[in-house]
């Protein structure tokens, strides 16, 4: 059983909702990433999403674009990201880590080499934003063979046939994109999300995480009423981007705690 499956399994049993937090690897500084990940777990993160910086993050809004640019300016490569995961794993053997990024850095390394190295480093899942199911049948199979969950996005515009395709190919969980737009957009319609989730549930037994545009404890709690997990990314990065390096981890903890409490209430 994968770490992701195990975590969702125990949460379902306890009727708890998972909190997934995203940071871009190497932002604001490569040396801060591992301490930041530990800090997020201490404050209540259940699953960590680690963004792999890319020069052309087409599906991301300005906040994650800036994070990617800051990390690239410090020379962070996919190899470095895997090294950060390996380092994190020395102290934390249970919290699932999902890498989220774009296809090109993976293809530049070579899919087989990447998946083998990711498995060895302790990665549990991968989201390749620009690998829709029709372009990555073999990549998904390769990931599964190495015990890594290929996680796919679904969107408000996804048809029933696409939901079934993602349910067939994906594992770990399904990432439901809560709005029509890019990451961090400001027009989340919670009711529309809640209305769509039952249709996805009907097609899959995979847990559903919801992200893109969740900005506070209140919207997180309302979404968690129907979803298995909520994902917070841009809002966390925004919170950290103006903070001096020495205070980043503490600020992250302070940001996460009330959301955790709201989810557990």
């Amino acid at each position, binding site marked *: 059983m994968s770490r992701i499956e195990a975590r969702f399994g125990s949460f379902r049993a306890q009727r708890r909702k998972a909190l997934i937090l995203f940071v871009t690897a190497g932002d604001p500084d490569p040396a801060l990433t591992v301490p930041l990940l530990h800090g997020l777990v201490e404050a209540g993160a259940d699953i960590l999403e680690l963004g792999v910086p890319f020069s052309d993050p087409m599906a991301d809004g300005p906040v994650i674009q800036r994070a990617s640019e800051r990390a690239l300016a410090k020379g962070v490569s996919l190899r470095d990201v895997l090294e950060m995961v390996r380092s994190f794993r020395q102290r934390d053997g249970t919290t699932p880590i999902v890498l989220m990024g774009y296809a090109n850095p993976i293809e530049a390394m070579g899919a087989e080499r990447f998946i083998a190295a990711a498995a060895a480093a302790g990665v549990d899942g991968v989201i390749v934003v620009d690998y*829709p199911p*029709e372009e990555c049948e073999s990549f998904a199979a390769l990931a599964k063979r190495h015990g890594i969950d290929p996680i796919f996005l679904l969107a408000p515009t996804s048809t029933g046939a696409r939901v079934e395709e993602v349910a067939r190919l994906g594992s770990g969980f399904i990432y439901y994109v809560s709005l029509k737009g890019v990451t961090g957009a400001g027009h989340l319609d919670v009711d529309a999300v809640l209305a769509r989730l039952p249709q996805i549930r009907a097609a899959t037994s995979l847990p559903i995480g919801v992200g893109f545009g969740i900005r506070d404890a209140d919207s997180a709690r309302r979404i968690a009423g129907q979803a298995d997990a909520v994902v917070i990314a841009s809002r966390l990065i925004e919170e950290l981007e103006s903070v001096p390096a020495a205070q980043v981890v503490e600020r992250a903890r302070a940001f996460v705690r009330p959301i955790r409490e709201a989810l557990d209430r």
Partner: protein
Amino acid sequence: MQMVDLPDARGHFGPYGGVFVAETLMHALAELRQAYDHCRGDAGFHQELRHELKHFVGRPSPVYHARRWSQQLGGAQIYLKREDLNHTGAHKINNTVGQALIARHMGKPRVIAETGAGQHGVATATVAARYGMQCVVYMGATDIERQAVNVYRMKLLGAAVVPVESGSKTLKDALNEAMRDWVTHVEDTFYIIGTVAGPHPYPMMVRDFQAVIGRECVEQMPELAGRQPDAVIACVGGGSNAMGIFHAYVPHAGVRLIGVEAAGEGIATGRHAASLCAGTPGVLHGNRTYLLQDANGQIAETHSISAGLDYPGVGPEHAWLKDSGRAEYVAVSDAEALQAFHDLCRYEGIIPALESAHALAYAAKLAATLPRDRLLLVNLSGRGDKDIPTVARLSGITL
């Protein structure tokens, strides 16, 4: 070789092309494929397109024998396909008219576009005005500075021009930003991509709309020169004018197809935009193709004297034509292109776009090595009025 049948149903040209986009765009692309399939098989659509190309764009564009320049070069005869004579001054409008008609068929009141040199932005703003659509053009902040006249042209035509400040602030970043706009306004917005790149069906659709260039040449060359050319030569940034003139010639096995990329300050300097000559396969902007990238898969910043060639990728069909050997790809430097620009001005009374000057420069080199009875057909994809400030500046002249 059955290459004219490509791409396959999922948009693949061999290992290239495809639909590498986030799930958030998959539905919009499916809708577009459906609409394009419908229009492609609709006689009424083709009739209207032909009418617009004739009466609004001014097609067919002539083929012209550059006799004096050929004589000067002392070798093969150079013929020019005069896409510079189209309305708005470049081949770009062939495609924007077609896509705008599809947008209208789909009932989308708003069109968006990315632009580098501004020619595709102008062509999009033009058709938006013609068909009464709202128009937003994304343009890198760096390109806005170097193409001020085209920015003003777009504004005169009623378009909003949005400066893109992310990444390298050039064409690739404008494309990213246009995709983000599309994903956010997917119900009422049609994204008019300007080149044969992007996710399926764009590479195929843009090629189909530009293929009128080559179809006309296949008729015009025998009329004017008595036979088909020995080689067809076109510049390649994203590759739309090249695909447009190549497509009808792909089955003509005796005709060499030569794409000319921007070598910038020289391939060895790293400051160039020659994705096919110096790049490696990867995934960007929705398709798999040759890219300029570093060892970690980050997209490289490119350089060319011509903003329209300043792009780190290339249309996937070119990647396929390269690997299959049907087309050859070469690169010429800023300096060589500039020389050809001046030569065409002085010997033929035609001011070419700096993009097209790359094709001219290679044609000049090749012509000099061939006998006088050989025929080279060059796609003169655009006129150079937009480049006059750049050329003047490089000549040390303040206008």
